[in-house]
């Protein structure tokens, strides 16, 4: 199986307090930010690796995982981290962060899919910066491919995938014919969530995303990294989403102390209007 995994870097979610808005409110200040791969995209890469190997022999590849990102040159460090983790090939589409929106990225990805012809496009369900949760869905629509979102389980089944989606009150099981677009949720990296046709049903992975082994880190620079221009993949690069202004969230207001239950009920009723 050949899997294409689009991914992006985001400001380190553990250092979210460092994210600042420029004085004019026009954009998020990116200088000095520490970048991490979007966690859901890391899960997508892990899922793609699991689908292209026998779990008992992870050092032998049985398929191809191509990772792609849109961004400036320094994004290559994020791609190489994925190559070190096990991805086979990387593509960087030259672009600035503020020249992109979900619509443009999805259209460019459609063009890339036509060139690369993967059997599956795997994405994180959303990026934890903009949280727009739309690239996967738009891409599936543009391609006219079957789609499953927020997958918590994927099992290869002939020319199709069995996809489990966790919803309130249970799991929805879908059978998706390949080629397809699937977005993944948190629990896709649990020990018994993903099975390629080579991995036996009683095999259990370690919890979470695999570690980049040091020998693979040393080899990562030798794996292919192609650089494309955004214009090669999309003729119309105008943005459909406009960001008129950014504001940091307001600090939390101080709470109020009440004397007794009667006052609490009164405030809930008349001030908060929740009763």
């Amino acid at each position, binding site marked *: 199986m050949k899997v294409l995994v689009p991914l992006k870097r985001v400001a380190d979610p553990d*250092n979210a307090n460092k994210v600042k808005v420029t004085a004019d409110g026009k954009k998020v200040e990116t*200088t*000095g930010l*520490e970048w991490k791969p979007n966690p859901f995209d890391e899960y997508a890469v892990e899922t793609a690796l699991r689908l292209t190997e026998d779990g008992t022999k992870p050092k032998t590849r049985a398929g191809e995982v191509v990772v792609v990102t849109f961004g400036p040159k320094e994004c290559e*460090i994020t791609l*190489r*981290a994925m190559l*070190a983790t096990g991805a086979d090939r990387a593509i960087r589409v030259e672009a600035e962060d503020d020249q992109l929106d979900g619509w443009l990225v999805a259209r460019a990805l459609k063009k890339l899919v036509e060139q690369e012809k993967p059997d599956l496009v795997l994405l994180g369900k959303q990026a934890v910066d903009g949280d727009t949760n739309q690239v996967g869905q738009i891409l599936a629509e543009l391609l006219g491919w079957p789609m499953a979102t927020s997958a918590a389980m994927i099992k290869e089944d002939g020319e199709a995938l069995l996809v489990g989606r966790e919803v309130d009150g249970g799991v929805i099981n879908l059978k998706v014919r390949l080629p397809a677009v699937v977005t993944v949720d948190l629990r896709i990296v649990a020990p018994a969530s993903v099975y390629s046709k080579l991995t036996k049903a009683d095999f259990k992975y370690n919890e*979470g995303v695999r*570690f*980049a*082994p*040091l*020998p*693979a*880190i*040393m080899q*990562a*620079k030798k794996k292919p990294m192609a650089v494309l221009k955004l214009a090669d993949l999309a003729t119309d690069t105008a943005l459909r989403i406009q960001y008129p202004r950014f504001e940091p969230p307001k600090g939390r207001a101080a709470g109020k102390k009440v004397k007794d239950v009667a006052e609490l009920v009164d405030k809930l009723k008349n001030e908060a209007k929740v009763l």
Partner: protein
Amino acid sequence: MQLASVATPTRPTQQANERGGEPVKQPVDIFNPTEEHRHLRETARKFGESVLGPQASKRDLEESFDPGLFARFGSELGLFGLTVSADHGGVGLDSTAAVIVHEEFSRFDPATTLSYLAHEVLFVNNFYHSADAAQRDRYLDKVLSGEWIAGMAMTEPEAGTDVLGMRTTAQRKGDRYVMNGTKQFITNGPYGRVFLVYARTGPGRRDISSFVVESGFKGFSVGKKETKMGMRGSPTSCLVFEDMEVPEENRIGAEGGALVHMMRNLEIERLTLAAQSVGIALRCCEEMTRYATQQRKAFGKRLIEFGQIQQMVAESHAHTMAARALVYTVAQSISPGRRESLGAASAKLVATGVGERVARAAIQVFGGYGYLRDYPVERMLRDAILLSIGGGTNEAMQKNISGDLSDMYG
């Protein structure tokens, strides 16, 4: 927490841009000299945080060692043989890489890191650079994969800092040596399959040779597992050799040539032990700063607003930064072909002192909670103390530094 991000000094550039001036040239990042070092740090930190950390306190309380976990350093992470050439199955990296791994692991589990150090630095690095091709063929694969746990045996019950006072003897008898003696405080002793052992092969004080000894050799036995104050997740015991026969082909290098091996390995040993202290100090800084700024209030104010707490937090942070900068600076000038004894001794002396003081300050900031086993800082202090003793005491470092200076000025 922010301390680890001293690795990416972005502030000067930012300020220059804000003033509208030319961007300042990015300073060299001594903590991550290449992208590979950065990815290595990422892997070590993730593994430390998600795998070593959660069980570290349990291993400390139970004084237990997990060989399955240890094997993952080799089979899963490929972290054995950092300084072994890639042509021989290693990674072909440098002292800075070794420092990164020891620092990151020690933030979460200094004891298991010490076992890693005994295997990787005390055995693998020394053995690789001193052994001949046939010896490498026989042993290297097994220790690089982690299939065999390894260690090194130098110290004796009555010879520590005074290493040339060792009494273990290896007497030549045909094509083999007969070894007799006891080695004390051997990290990985109860679990090791192979050890690098120093023994006396002649009457002179410097007539010492290096041997590779397998735990299966007849006459080899392991003493009782020691009960320790700290580093309890790292197994320590004495090794006893009673008329143990060691084949001649297991002698490393020339007869009487051990001092060269010993000396060549000393600096990276000291440096990685110093890196462990830096890791402990970083963790304790994080813990105490988070506690003082986010978690604990007294008299209606956050702890960090009290001057006495500020002194402990600020000095801990500053001293940790200084020790870290020293360790990484010295790391740049240490390799098998390049020695820097003054730097290595200074790094160990400074970093181990900082590790102890910062861990102690963290306990004080936590108050009564710091004294409980529920929080990691008291374990960190107990672990930190070993680093001022093992691998050369701080008194030995003072002696060596004074000796080197005396040579330079005398």
